[in-house]
């Protein structure tokens, strides 16, 4: 037990180790942040195409979107990462962080698209019909009626997706990137601390706290959105 505390002391008193952990954590956050951003942007576009009223112009885009989602959801994330690294961006000197962001962003887009699509479809059809009957345009109906109601259904699931991406980025260590997960392994290895338990638990704590924070924020947003739903009188 005293050994365990000694290791904790060692980890937190060695600037190199702290530096490695923070570096790894920063990479994890960077990849996650931009991947989620791409995921939400691209996912929203896919969801909009997918839920749009069928028309001649949308046959091809709709097909592309559904095929895209099927492929992404039907193959392992690790394999998608490998394909990005070793086939598509197998360019010498190409920054690996960009490759990783693209890989995770494209993956997240497919799942986010499904989340957003579900949110849009869950809005009662009568809401759209009311807007139509009043003569409102499709854009107004979407912006003023459908989107605000869809967001309420989307936020919780989107929170899940964000958490998934953050945890899943740990597999970048498979292509040699130095993220939080890799940092824990490196610090614990033979030429450094020669003990995995403390660095790995520390890394776990980093993930836990990050995800707890996100869960907390999402819950707050959810609550805020729901309040306007049930407010009786002013």
């Amino acid at each position, binding site marked *: 037990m005293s050994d365990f505390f000694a290791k904790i002391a060692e980890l937190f008193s060695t600037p190199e180790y702290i530096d490695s952990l923070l570096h790894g954590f920063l990479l994890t956050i960077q990849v996650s942040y931009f991947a989620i951003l791409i995921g939400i942007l691209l996912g929203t576009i896919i969801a909009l195409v997918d839920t749009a009223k069928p028309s001649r112009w949308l046959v091809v885009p709709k097909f592309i979107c559904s095929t895209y989602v099927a492929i992404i959801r039907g193959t392992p994330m690790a394999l998608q990462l490998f394909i990005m690294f070793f086939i598509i961006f197998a360019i010498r000197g190409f920054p690996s962080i960009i490759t990783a962001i693209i890989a995770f962003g494209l993956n997240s887009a497919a799942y986010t698209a499904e989340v957003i699509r579900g949110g849009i479809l869950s809005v009662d059809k009568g809401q759209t019909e009311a807007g139509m009957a*009043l003569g409102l345009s499709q854009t107004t109906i979407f912006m003023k009626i459908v989107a605000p109601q869809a967001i309420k259904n989307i936020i919780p699931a989107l929170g899940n997706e964000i958490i998934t991406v953050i945890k899943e980025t740990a597999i970048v260590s498979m292509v040699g990137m130095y993220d939080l997960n890799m940092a824990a392994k490196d610090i614990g290895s033979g030429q450094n601390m020669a003990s995995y338990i403390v660095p790995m638990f520390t890394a776990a704590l980093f993930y836990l706290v990050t995800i707890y924070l996100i869960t907390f924020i999402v819950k707050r947003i959810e609550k805020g959105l729901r309040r306007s*739903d049930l407010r009786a009188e002013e």
Partner: protein
Amino acid sequence: MERNTELIIKDLKKTYGKNKVIRGIDFELHEGERVVVLGPSGSGKSTFLRCINRIEEPTGGMISFDGTIVTDRNIRKIRRDIGMVFQHFNLINNLTVMENLTLAPVKLRVMKRDAAEKRAKELLRHIGLSNKANSYPASLSGGQKQRIAIIRAMMMSPEVLLFDEPTSALDPESIGDVLSLIRELADRGMTIMIVTHEMSFAREIATRIVFIDKGKIIEEGTPTEFFEHPKTPRVREFLNKVL
């Protein structure tokens, strides 16, 4: 008395895949008329009503409103003049009562915001729901929602009001409130089409009854003709069951 023809419908058809819901309806609606559409459930009467303002896209036939043939291009403009009240009220859940009432008139520049809010307040006061202006639909009863849905349609000062089973989702007490509001609009000369199962109300309010079965109008006439001297066996059978 020569009256303005609001609506001319010729050979209207609506199919869902192989399912023919409307099989050729010819119909005219004149200013000041109150037409009640009756028929068994699944007869296509709601679909008929919803085809008029293209909430459902007809698959055949022609509709002209106020002398203009309704197309995909002009339907949005025409919808301003055709109010609709739904069975399930369809108040916009994320908007307050006031916002529900003013959204369309302000967005479509029918009224300035001040004027729209003033009119909304008047109408709310008229139906005794002034205190609900800032409430959300979730906190209202069915009857309150439906009466607000009716004045929401009135905000646009439509030429015609369509009611799609306006009382079918209400408790008996609220039904009375909603019906008396409709009755009041009728008394003021509003041109109205109602799909309903309220037979006594139909009889009381209608200037003409239209009976639809299997996607076709099979009988129409004044309430007296229709209820006292039905011409077709199908209507006689229907009346025997419901009266």
